[in-house]
């Protein structure tokens, strides 16, 4: 006999776990299906955990969640071939009882999160792929899995199957993911003794440092790199838009190799043993690329809904928040004894619009288009900034006034006066 649940959640990443946990805790019968061997085995992220989004789901998560380091310092580096110019922000205030950001390793973290779903009463079944949604006309009434006797029914299905949601595509909820709206990121984890990590980054205990990197290392492609400190390892990665990779004909691993060899990065990972590498797609189309978020008997959350703030490198917090809001929508409808029809599930979209998720995406809605049309943001400016710093810092008998003039001249020569004004205006418009 086919099983029936209040809700089925497809996928056990941040969005799926948030949704399944929230509904299970409210007493709903929840089935969560995950294709990986255990939750986390197929999931890839940088990874930074933003505490706030998780706190709203599991307030005391700090008690037992596998966290690596809490971030007390953020560096932003703009690289030229052999140099970088950057800023640091470090504060003791980040050493509070309730730190705001952590580095995490997703395999243990997702396993922990899934354990919470099970403890709350959710039924989690792994190694099972949902092959399609079962629809009755337009209404989603369940899912079909790759196992024998694999049809399972539910009042509502929450899709959290990750970037490039094949299920939503197959059901016709959205089209093919466009190469210009998705970044391809590759990363490696290098193991180093805890003391080495601490001394290299001037940190103690579980303090952590993150470095966000842009510039020459992306070969002018729209993209950035990162370096995160974990307890006994360093995560290093780089990602650029898929369309740019295609145009440039450069393989992602080449960029990663170059990043690792850069004189600013190489000493930080020296002696480390590379023990893990991963690649992942990140939906970076922003606000304009967000598909329909709900319909008859279904909602979509997290990466599968393209909810990623590429500018601030936030994704998992948007995922968890959207998963929670989708779950709360179902809980509210159940309480009111209302069916999960599209008009009722519209509450989910309204809740998202009202949250930071959509507000932030809307703020940067023009940015993807502007970056596409202006690749010099990733090529010309990093070089100019580095050369300006170099010129100012070289004590070579030339007076400072002339140096400033040289620097100004180099900017105007590369971008022209109107180009500079236009770039400033475009950036202001894109981020206001």
């Amino acid at each position, binding site marked *: 006999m086919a*099983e029936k649940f209040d809700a089925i959640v497809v996928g056990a990443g941040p969005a799926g776990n948030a949704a399944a946990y929230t509904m299970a805790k409210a007493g709903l019968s929840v089935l969560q299906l995950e294709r990986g*061997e*255990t939750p986390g*085995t197929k999931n890839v992220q940088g990874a930074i955990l933003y505490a706030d989004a998780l706190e709203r789901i599991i307030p005391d998560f700090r008690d037992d969640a596998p966290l690596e380091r809490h971030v007390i310092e953020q560096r932003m580096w703009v690289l030229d071939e052999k140099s970088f110019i950057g800023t640091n922000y470090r504060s003791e205030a980040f050493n509070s009882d309730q730190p705001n950001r952590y580095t995490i*390793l997703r*395999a*243990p973290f997702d396993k922990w999160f899934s354990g919470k779903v099970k403890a709350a009463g959710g*039924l*989690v*079944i792994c190694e*099972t792929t949902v092959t399609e949604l079962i629809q009755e006309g337009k209404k989603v009434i369940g899912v079909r*899995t790759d*196992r*024998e*006797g*694999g*049809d*399972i029914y539910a009042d509502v299905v929450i899709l959290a199957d990750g970037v490039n949601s094949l299920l939503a595509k197959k059901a016709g909820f959205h089209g093919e993911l466009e190469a210009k709206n998705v970044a391809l990121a590759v990363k490696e984890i290098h*193991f*180093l*003794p805890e003391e080495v990590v601490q001394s290299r980054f001037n940190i103690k205990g579980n303090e952590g440092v993150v470095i966000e990197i842009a510039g020459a290392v992306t070969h002018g492609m729209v993209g950035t790199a990162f370096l995160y400190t974990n307890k006994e390892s360093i995560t290093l990665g780089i990602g650029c838009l898929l369309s740019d990779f295609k145009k440039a004909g450069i393989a992602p691993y080449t960029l990663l190799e170059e990043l690792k060899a850069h004189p600013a990065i190489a000493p930080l990972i020296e*002696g*480390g*043993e590379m*023990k893990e590498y991963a690649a992942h797609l990140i939906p970076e189309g922003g606000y304009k690329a967000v598909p329909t978020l709900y319909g008859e008997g279904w909602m979509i959350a997290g990466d599968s809904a393209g909810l990623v703030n590429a500018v601030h490198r936030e994704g998992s917090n948007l995922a968890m928040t959207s998963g929670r809001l989708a779950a709360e929508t179902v809980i509210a409808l159940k309480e009111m004894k209302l069916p999960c029809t599209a008009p009722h599930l519209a509450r989910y979209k309204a809740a998202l619009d009202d949250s930071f998720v959509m507000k932030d995406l809307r703020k940067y809605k023009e940015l993807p288009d502007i970056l596409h049309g202006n690749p010099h943001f990733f090529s010309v400016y990093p070089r100019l900034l580095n050369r300006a710093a170099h010129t100012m810092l070289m004590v070579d008998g030339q007076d400072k006034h002339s140096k400033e003039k040289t620097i100004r001249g180099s900017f105007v020569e590369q971008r022209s006066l109107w180009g500079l004004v236009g770039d400033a205006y475009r950036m202001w418009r894109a981020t206001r």
Partner: protein
Amino acid sequence: MHIVVCIKQVPDSAQIRVHPVTNTIMRQGVPAIINPFDVFAIEEALRLKDRFGGRITVLTMGPPQAEDALRKAIAYGADDVILLTDRAFAGADTLATSFALAQTIRKIAEEHPVDLVFTGKQTIDGDTAQVGPGIAKRLGLQLLTYVSAIDSLDLEERSITVQRRSEGGVQVIRTRLPALITMLEGSNQIRFAGMDDMFRSARFEVPKWNKERAGIEDVSKIGLKGSPTVVSKIFTPRPRAVRAQMIGADLDASGTANAVLDTLSSQHLRLAQELGLITA
């Protein structure tokens, strides 16, 4: 027919990390799997059940998280599972482990007499291949190691015929029940569980037995106390510096064969004698 399958949860050696400084194995974050050889044991037991009916109990000794391995066994189709878990078992070597498992199987047999016990040929973390034989010896079971196929099983006659891989060939062995079989890799392919079994597995309450429940009174025979094995040294074997040698590559087939035999005879006298190439 009642079959007990003994399995072990092991770290996935394909994903294991060695700490670059201390050279110890870092288990943290390494996924735990059912010992791959044990998976062949589970499937072979399931196939016997498909043909002859009966009952399969899967048993493991390990920490609480070994429950995941047993849950998987339920998904494959085991009727029951038992997690033998007790702090007193910690630090067990193969002697203490086979004692604890044998004792537990005795206890299991009180309710459902056991006809066959299956294990994998060895584990991928210890690689000793001692626990299976240890259980057989303690329980007085017929021991069939390195089994690649089961040819026949006669429940009336209480006999079983198997193919056993041995050096240089295959032995066909017939013996009586009850017997213990250690399965070779590649002998079968584990089934893909249906959705019903996945649900049963997800909802299954895994029974946990401590030493009392397993009827173990003599604590000097279990855990660290019952383990005479001492690890005196761990080292990475150095790759041998001996290089491959090209022998008679420029000759014709028979010339090459003769050149190879000449080289063998000159370097391995005993082998040459056994092959009758030279006389002693």
